[in-house]
C-alpha cells in the first residue's frame, strides 16, 4: 500500500497524536488528544462523564500551551485520505451523538425545575426573552413583519395565533417521556421534546407574536455601537457594501422569522427570538448609519467578581487594542461578501461585546469575563409560566415522576460514559474511538499498528504516547514548548547571563512567571533540572510547609486559600524529591507574550 511521501505536492493526510505534559490543577497525570487538520478532539472528565470535546487548534494550544504552560508533544502518523476521513467521521458522529444525549439529560432535569417553579409559582428561565423590554408600542421596526404575516395569512392572524398558543401553554400537560433505548455512542439518538422544551418553545413563539403585535423593543443597554456603517476612507459608492450586506441579512432574518412562525419545529423558539433581536438591531443600524450589535456576554450579575491587578492593566490595554482592531477590520472589510453570513455578524457581536467589557474593566479597574456560553447568543430571561394543566395538588407527584425519569437517564449515562481512572479515561476512550473507525481491526493497516485500550499501561497518557511512537507509522515528532520554556529559550538566544538564569530559576525573582493561586506554593522551578531535582524539591517542600503554617493562622480571614496552596505545594514537591516533575506554574489569559 502506498502512503503519500513527505514533501508531496498535495498536503499529506496526517493525524497527530498529542501528549500534553502534566502540571498542577486538572490532568496532573498528563493529557492526550488527536489533531485532525485544525481540529483537536480529546476526552475530558466532565462531572464524572468521559466527554468528547472538540476545539480548534489555536484555542487548544492557547489553553494548554500558553495559559496552562505545558509542553505539547506531537507524533504525526501518515494515513490514506479515506482512512483519515473515517477517523474524522467517527469522531464527529460520536461528538454530536454524545452532545445530544447530554442535552437530553439536561432537558429532563429542566422538567423537574420547571415543575418546581409551577408548584411555587416562581419565574422560569427562557432563552431569548432577555433581549427584550416588554413595554408596548416602543418600536415600529417589527411592523413590516406583522404586515407580511397578515398579508399572507389574513388580518387578525397574529392575535388569533397568539391566543391559540396561550391556550396550548395553559393546557399543556406533563407526559412522562418514553423509556429511552439503550445508549449507543455512534448512533444519533431520537428523543421527543421534553415538557420543558415544549413549554419553552410555546412561550417563545407566544412571546414573539406578542412582541410583533405590540412593538416590544430591545431592552436598554443591550446594544453596542461598533462603528460607522460607512467607514471613512472607502471608495464612494451609491450604496456602501455594509449597507447592502445588512439589508440582505435583514431580509434573510425576516424570511426565517416568518417561516419559523408558520412552521415551528421543536427547538425553534429561542432561535426565533434571536432573529427578532438581530432584526431590530439591524433596523436601527440602517436607520442611523451606525453598526449596532447585541451585547452577547453574560449580564453583569452573572460575571465573576474581582479586582483588576495593577500588572494586568498593561496586558488589558493590549487586549483592547487587539479587539479594537478586530472590530475595525470587520466593520471596514468583513461585510463585503455578496451573501450574508451569520458567522461574520456573530463575530462582530462577540468582538464588540468583548471590547466593551474590556474597556469597562480597565476604566473601573475590575476583572473582566470574556467567556461566553456555547452556541448562539442566549438572551436568558425569566417569566412565570401560565400553565394550569396540572392541578396544584398533583404537581408534587408529577415532579417526583419527572425526577425519577431524569435519575433513570442519568444512571444510563453513567453506565455508558462513567469516568474511570484506568478503564475509561481520556486515553482509553480516544483509542476506542479511533479503533472503532475501522472494521475488523483494519486500524493496524491504517495506522501501522494496534493499541488495545488500557493495555500495556496505555491508560497513562505518557505511556500511551510512547506506545504510539513505537507501534504506529509515525513519520515525525515535534515538541511545542510551553510558554515559560519558549521565553527561556528567547532569553538564551539573547545571550542570557548566569544572573538571568538565577533570576528565572525561582518564583520570587522571576520576571517571566508570577505566582498564581492554584499553582500551589513553590519556590524553585524543577522542570529543567534533573539530578538536582530532589534537592530543589526538598526546598519546595520546606517552602510549602512554611506557607501552610502561615496559612493556618490566616485561614479564618482568607478562606483557607493560603493553607490550601501550602498543602498542595507540599504534595507536588513529593514527586520532585523522587526525580519527577509535575508542577510548572501557569499563566493568566492575558499573559505578556
Amino acid at each position, binding site marked *: 500500500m502506498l502512503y503519500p511521501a513527505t514533501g508531496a505536492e498535495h498536503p499529506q493526510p496526517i493525524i497527530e497524536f498529542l501528549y500534553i505534559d502534566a502540571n498542577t490543577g486538572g490532568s496532573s497525570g498528563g493529557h492526550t488528544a488527536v489533531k485532525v487538520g485544525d481540529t483537536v478532539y480529546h476526552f475530558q472528565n466532565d462531572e464524572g462523564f468521559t466527554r468528547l470535546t472538540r476545539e480548534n487548534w489555536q484555542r487548544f494550544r492557547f489553553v494548554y500551551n500558553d495559559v496552562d504552560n505545558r509542553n505539547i508533544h506531537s507524533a504525526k502518523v501518515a494515513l490514506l485520505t479515506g482512512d483519515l476521513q473515517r477517523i474524522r*467521521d467517527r469522531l464527529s458522529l460520536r461528538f454530536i451523538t454524545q452532545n445530544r444525549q447530554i442535552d437530553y439529560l439536561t432537558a429532563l432535569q429542566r422538567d423537574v425545575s420547571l415543575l418546581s417553579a409551577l408548584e411555587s409559582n416562581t419565574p422560569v428561565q427562557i432563552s431569548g426573552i432577555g433581549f427584550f423590554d416588554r413595554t408596548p408600542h416602543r418600536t415600529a421596526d417589527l411592523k413590516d413583519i406583522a404586515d407580511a404575516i397578515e398579508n399572507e395569512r389574513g388580518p387578525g392572524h397574529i392575535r388569533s395565533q397568539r391566543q391559540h398558543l396561550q391556550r396550548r401553554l395553559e393546557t399543556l400537560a406533563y407526559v412522562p417521556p418514553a423509556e429511552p433505548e439503550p445508549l449507543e455512542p455512534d448512533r444519533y439518538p431520537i428523543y421527543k421534546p421534553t415538557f420543558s422544551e415544549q413549554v419553552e418553545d410555546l412561550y417563545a413563539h407566544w412571546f414573539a407574536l406578542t412582541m410583533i403585535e405590540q412593538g416590544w423593543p430591545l431592552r436598554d443597554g443591550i446594544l453596542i455601537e461598533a462603528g460607522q456603517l460607512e467607514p471613512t476612507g472607502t471608495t464612494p459608492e451609491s450604496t456602501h457594501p455594509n449597507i447592502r450586506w445588512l439589508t440582505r441579512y435583514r431580509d434573510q432574518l425576516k424570511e426565517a422569522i416568518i417561516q419559523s412562525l408558520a412552521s415551528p419545529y421543536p427547538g425553534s423558539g429561542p432561535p426565533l427570538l434571536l432573529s427578532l433581536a438581530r432584526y431590530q438591531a439591524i433596523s436601527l443600524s440602517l436607520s442611523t448609519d451606525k453598526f449596532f450589535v447585541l451585547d452577547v456576554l453574560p449580564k453583569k450579575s452573572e460575571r465573576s467578581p474581582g479586582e483588576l491587578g495593577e500588572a494586568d492593566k498593561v496586558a488589558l490595554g493590549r487586549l483592547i487594542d487587539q*479587539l479594537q482592531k478586530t472590530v475595525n477590520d470587520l466593520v471596514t472589510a468583513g461585510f463585503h*461578501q455578496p451573501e450574508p*453570513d*451569520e458567522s461574520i455578524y456573530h463575530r462582530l457581536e462577540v*468582538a464588540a461585546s468583548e471590547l466593551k467589557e474590556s474597556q469597562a474593566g480597565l476604566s473601573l479597574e475590575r476583572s473582566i469575563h470574556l467567556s461566553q456560553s456555547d452556541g448562539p447568543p442566549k438572551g436568558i430571561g425569566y417569566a412565570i409560566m401560565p400553565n394550569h394543566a396540572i392541578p396544584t395538588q398533583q404537581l408534587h407527584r408529577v415532579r417526583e415522576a419527572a425526577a425519577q425519569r431524569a435519575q433513570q437517564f442519568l444512571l444510563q449515562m453513567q453506565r455508558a460514559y462513567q469516568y474511570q481512572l484506568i478503564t475509561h479515561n481520556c486515553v482509553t476512550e480516544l483509542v476506542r474511538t479511533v479503533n472503532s473507525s475501522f472494521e475488523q481491526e483494519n486500524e493496524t493497516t491504517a495506522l501501522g499498528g494496534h493499541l488495545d485500550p488500557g493495555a500495556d499501561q496505555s491508560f497513562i497518557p505518557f505511556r500511551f504516547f510512547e506506545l504510539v511512537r513505537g507501534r504506529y507509522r509515525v513519520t515525525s515528532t515535534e515538541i511545542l514548548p510551553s510558554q515559560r520554556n519558549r521565553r527561556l529559550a528567547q532569553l538564551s538566544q539573547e545571550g542570557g547571563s548566569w544572573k538571568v538564569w538565577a533570576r528565572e530559576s525561582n518564583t520570587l525573582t522571576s520576571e517571566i512567571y508570577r505566582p498564581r493561586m492554584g499553582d500551589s506554593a513553590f519556590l524553585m522551578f524543577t522542570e529543567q533540572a534533573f539530578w538536582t531535582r530532589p534537592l530543589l524539591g526538598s526546598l519546595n517542600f520546606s517552602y510549602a510547609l512554611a506557607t501552610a503554617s502561615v496559612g493556618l493562622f490566616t485561614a479564618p480571614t482568607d478562606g483557607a486559600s493560603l493553607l490550601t496552596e501550602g498543602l498542595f505545594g507540599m504534595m507536588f514537591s513529593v514527586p520532585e524529591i523522587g526525580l519527577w516533575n509535575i508542577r510548572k506554574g501557569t499563566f493568566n489569559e492575558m499573559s505578556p507574550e
Partner: protein
Amino acid sequence: MNTIRCPNRFTPFLIALVMFQGCSFSDSSISISESVGSSSESSASSLASSGSSASSEAAGLSKEKKAYRDDVANLTYSVSGSSMSARDFPNALARTASQFKISNWSQEKATFYGIGKGLKRAGIPKENITRQPFLGNVLTANKNAITYIESGYSH
C-alpha cells in the same frame, strides 16, 4: 529528534500519580477572549471564503463551515433509514448548527451540502432524495434546498 525522559523504573510512580488525578481537565474556569484566544478567523481578511455567491459547493466553504457541513453529513448518515420524523430532523439540525453558533440552519448552504453528502454516504440513490420522510420539512425550509442538497451529494 527530541526524546522524553521516562525510565521504566518510574512507571509505578507514574501510575501512582495517575491514580491521584487521571487526565481529567476542565477549562470551564478559564475566561478567554474568543476574538483573541480561540478564533483564527477573526480578522476580516480571513473571512473571504466564508460567503460565496455561487450555488455550487465547489465554490468553497470556510474551514469552519466545512466542519459544520461534515457534522450535518454524519448526522444525516446516522439517521437515514431510522424512525427520525420530518418534525424532529430540523431540531437535530438546529442542535448541530448551534455548536457552530449558527441559529438559522435553513439559511446556511452548508446545511444542505452536508445533508447531500450524508445521504450519499448512506447509500440513498440521488433520485430518492425527495422521498426521504425525515427530509419533509427541510426541503421546504429553503427555496434552493434541493439544488444545494444535490450539489453536496455530487461532491
